[in-house]
C-alpha cells in the first residue's frame, strides 16, 4: 500500500516562537487522521506546512511517496526547490479552510470548476459536468449559479468541500472546517465529511469536534506545544488517555 502522506521531523517557528518542534506523522491511504489540541498547540500550522502555505524550517514531507524538495534562498531561509512541483502537489492536497475562502467574484459553480480548467487543463464541459456532480454530492447543486455571499456559512463550506474535491485530490486537508459556523450549521458540514470518510478518502482534519473525531477518525493525534503528546486509535485516545494533558483537554472539551 502506498503511504499517502509522510511527515518527518518537521519544525516551524515564527520569529522566536517555536510552533512546531519536530513532528513526524504517517497517513496511509484511506486514513482519517484527526488532529486535536488546544489553541496555540500548532495544529493549523502543521496542516499548513503540509501544503506549504507555511514553509517549514526543517523536516521532510512526502506526498504519495514523492518528497517535496526544499532548498535555501539567498537569505538562507528554506524555500521550495521547484515551485512547479509545489503547484502540482497542492492539487493532490486540496484544502478546506476555516473561513471557506471561496472566491467572492465567482459563482458557486465557477468556484468549483476554476482549478480543474485553469490548473489541470480539463475541458470546460467535463469540468462543468463534474462540478454539478460534486455540488449535488454536497447537496448544493441548486445554488450553482449564485454567488458565495448569498449562501449561509454551512452552504459555503460545503461548496468549499466540492471545490476541493474537484481537483481530484489524494488527500483532503481540513483546517477547523466547522469553527466559523453557527452551531446549527455544523451538522450539515460534518455529514458531508463523514460521507467522504466512508468513501475511503484520505483526510487530515484539524478539529474541535470531538464527536466527529471519535466516530470517524482512524487515528487521533493530540498536539501540545508543537509536539505530538499522544496518538493512537480514536477509541484508545478518547477512552483511555495516558497523558495528564490529554486527560485535561478531553475533560474540558467533552463536556455537554
Amino acid at each position: 500500500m502506498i503511504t499517502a502522506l509522510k511527515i518527518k521531523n518537521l519544525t516551524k517557528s515564527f520569529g522566536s516562537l517555536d510552533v512546531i518542534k519536530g513532528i513526524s506523522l504517517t497517513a496511509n491511504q484511506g486514513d482519517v487522521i484527526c488532529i486535536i489540541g488546544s489553541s496555540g498547540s500548532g495544529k493549523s500550522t502543521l496542516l499548513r506546512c503540509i501544503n506549504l502555505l507555511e514553509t517549514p524550517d526543517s523536516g521532510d514531507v512526502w506526498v504519495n511517496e514523492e518528497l517535496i524538495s526544499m532548498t535555501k534562498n539567498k537569505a538562507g531561509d528554506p524555500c521550495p526547490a521547484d515551485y512547479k512541483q509545489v503547484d502540482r502537489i497542492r492539487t493532490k492536497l486540496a484544502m478546506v479552510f476555516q473561513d471557506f475562502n471561496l472566491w467572492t467574484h465567482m459563482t458557486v459553480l465557477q468556484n468549483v470548476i476554476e482549478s480543474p480548467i485553469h490548473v489541470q487543463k480539463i475541458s470546460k464541459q467535463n469540468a462543468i459536468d463534474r462540478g454539478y456532480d460534486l455540488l449535488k454530492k454536497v447537496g448544493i447543486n441548486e445554488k450553482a449559479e449564485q454567488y458565495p455571499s448569498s449562501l449561509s456559512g454551512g452552504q459555503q463550506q460545503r461548496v468549499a468541500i466540492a471545490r476541493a474535491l474537484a481537483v481530484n485530490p489524494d488527500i483532503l486537508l481540513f483546517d477547523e472546517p466547522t469553527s466559523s459556523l453557527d452551531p446549527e450549521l455544523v451538522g450539515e458540514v460534518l455529514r458531508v465529511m463523514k460521507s467522504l470518510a466512508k468513501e475511503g478518502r484520505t483526510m487530515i482534519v484539524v478539529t474541535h469536534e470531538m464527536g466527529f473525531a471519535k466516530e470517524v477518525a482512524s487515528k487521533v493525534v493530540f498536539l501540545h506545544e508543537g509536539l505530538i503528546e499522544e496518538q493512537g486509535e480514536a477509541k484508545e485516545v478518547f477512552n483511555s488517555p495516558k497523558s495528564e494533558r490529554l486527560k485535561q483537554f478531553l475533560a474540558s472539551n467533552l463536556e455537554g
Partner: protein
Amino acid sequence: MSIDGICISLPKEYLGLKVQLMCDSLPKLLLGIPLTIELVAISLSIGFVLAMCIALMRISGSRLLNIVSRSYVFYFRGTPLLVQIFLIYYGLAQFDLIKESFLWPFFREAYWCGILALTLNTGAYTAEIIRGGLQSVPHGQIESARSMGMSGILLYRRVILPIAFRQALPAYGNEMILMVKGTSLVSTITLMEITGIARHIIAKYWTPVEIFLIAGIIYLFINYLVTRIVRYAENRYTPYLQTNE
C-alpha cells in the same frame, strides 16, 4: 424644425439671460464633445496601462522600483493638473534635446501635450486606486487559490486582479468623472474642446454666464452617461456587492 427655427421662436431674453444666443451656441458647443471624449478615452486608456505598471512596481518588493513609483505618484498627485499641462506644453520646447528628437513632432502639438499631461495625471491617481484594490484582496482567497495549485501569472489573472479591479470600480468611476472635467483645462493650451469653444464664444459676445451654463450642462450630461456606465459595470461584475435600492 431646424435649430435656427427653434431659436427664433424662443424669447430673446429671459430672466436677464440671452436665451437666443444660448440656443444658437448650443450646436457649436456640441461640436466640442468629440474632442473632449477623445481626450478622456485616450488618456484613460494609456493612463490605465501606466497605472497598472506603477501599481505593480509599488508592490514589487524592489526598493528602486518602489521609489520610482512613489515619486511619480507624489509629484503628479501633489501638483495641479493645470501646472502639469503648462509645464509640458511650454516647458518641453525649452529643451533642444527634445526639439531635435523624433518626439518633437508630437510635443509641438498642443493636442499631444494635453494627452500626455492628462495621461500622466490619471496614471498617478489610478495607480493608487489599483494599489488599494490589490491590497484589499482578502488574503484567504489568495491562499485558497494557492492551495488549489495556482501561482504566478495565473493567480494574478484569475483571482487577484479580478477581485482587485472589482473592489476598485467605484473609486475608478470617480476618477473617470474627474478626467471628464479635467479635460476642460487643456482649453488653456488652445485645444477647442467644449470649454475651449465656450471661451471662444465668450470672447466674441462677452456672455460668460449664458455660455458656461450651457457648457456646464453638457459636462453634466457626459458625466451622467459615465455614471450610468460605471453603474452598469458594477451591476455586471459585482452583483454580489449591490443592494437593491
